[in-house]
């Protein structure tokens, strides 16, 4: 497969969130603010790319039986790097993301890519696949967050967009709207595909 093809497949046509419904825990939890979503997305891209690289590099040497455990530990090591980086340089964001940075470890997307791609392909391809899948995930996060932050707080990235006349929809900040937004997104994306096929 060509590099560009790998990227587009994992970012769009096989997007983890809307095609495979993976990794939605964090996709729902952090999307009330654009900034949090962006940081979360970058963290996931970093972890995906580097854990894909590492797992692909040592894929010949991992015993089959303890494969999952080894992969989890590799992923956890990179998540610790992300967590320490955020704690040191952006303590505010780290605080508002709370445990969700740590929960990148159990994000099914990362395990899914490790199993489905990095375990079978070359390190460079795995990095591209990881970045692609991570970008696809970040895209979903940002789409949902843009709607929730705009209606919930009247702002984007903390910059006020809608003026004082806007009555903030507090439901958009709360949990239920996250479920509805993701459901609507999946609905919109899946509709034309199924009509054609």
């Amino acid at each position: 497969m060509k590099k560009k093809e790998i990227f587009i497949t994992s970012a769009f046509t096989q997007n983890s969130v809307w095609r495979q419904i993976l990794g939605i825990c964090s996709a729902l939890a952090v999307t009330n603010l654009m900034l949090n979503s962006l940081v979360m997305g970058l963290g996931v891209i970093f972890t995906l790319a580097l854990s894909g690289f590492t797992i692909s590099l040592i894929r010949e040497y991992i015993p089959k039986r303890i494969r999952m455990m080894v992969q989890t530990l590799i992923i956890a090591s990179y998540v610790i790097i992300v967590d320490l980086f955020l704690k040191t340089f952006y303590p505010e964001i780290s605080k508002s993301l709370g445990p969700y940075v740590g929960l990148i470890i159990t994000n099914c997307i990362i395990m899914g890519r490790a199993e489905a791609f990095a375990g079978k392909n070359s390190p460079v391809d795995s990095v591209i696949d990881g970045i692609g899948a991570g970008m696809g995930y970040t895209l979903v996060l940002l789409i949902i967050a843009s709607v929730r932050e705009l209606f919930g707080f009247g702002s984007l990235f903390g910059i006020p967009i809608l003026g004082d006349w806007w009555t903030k929809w507090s439901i958009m900040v709360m949990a239920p709207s996250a479920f509805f937004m993701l459901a609507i997104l999946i609905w919109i994306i899946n509709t034309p595909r199924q009509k054609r096929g």
Partner: protein
Amino acid sequence: MELNAFIIFFAAIFTSNILLTNFLGMCSFLSVSKEIESSIGLGMAVTFVMTVTSAINYVVYHFILVPLDIIYLQYIIFIIVIAAFVQLTEMVLERFSPLLYYSLGIFLPLITVNCAILGVSLFMIIRDYSFLQAVAYGAGSGLGWLLAILILAGIRKKIKDKYVPTGLVGAGLSLIITGIMALAFVGFSGIVVIQ
């Protein structure tokens, strides 16, 4: 934090349901909720593992990680504890209670990657709970998760044969039902707040 452990237990089930307000454990929640029996099985397994691992992780964190000043390793340690405990439970069940093993055993491997388990351990550290509070929180969260998956499984069974727009079949519909459930649970949120 002076909340009674009992209050935390109930708050974890209703007002801060781990699934409906913190969105944890969604993957297995959506895929297993097709049948009521397997939902109960998985829910019970989750409750059990969550209660015990929150206790173990509390002890490990406060008596090993803090004194040694290696708190930054908590993610790796917690994951290892959870995975090891799940493996152990599986072996013990298989050896001593084959009946229970066949009803719960198949769900155990799924649990290691259930983010709700790790989430409970991380939340209890962040919120600075005492031992009793942590265990109560673990048990309550597990039961809350069981409650949520049971409701969803029941609703999905009822509407199985009804007409649904094609693009919404499967995950989309489950998410909307979950959203409505979350709205209902927001109704509890005035009673008590645990952060």
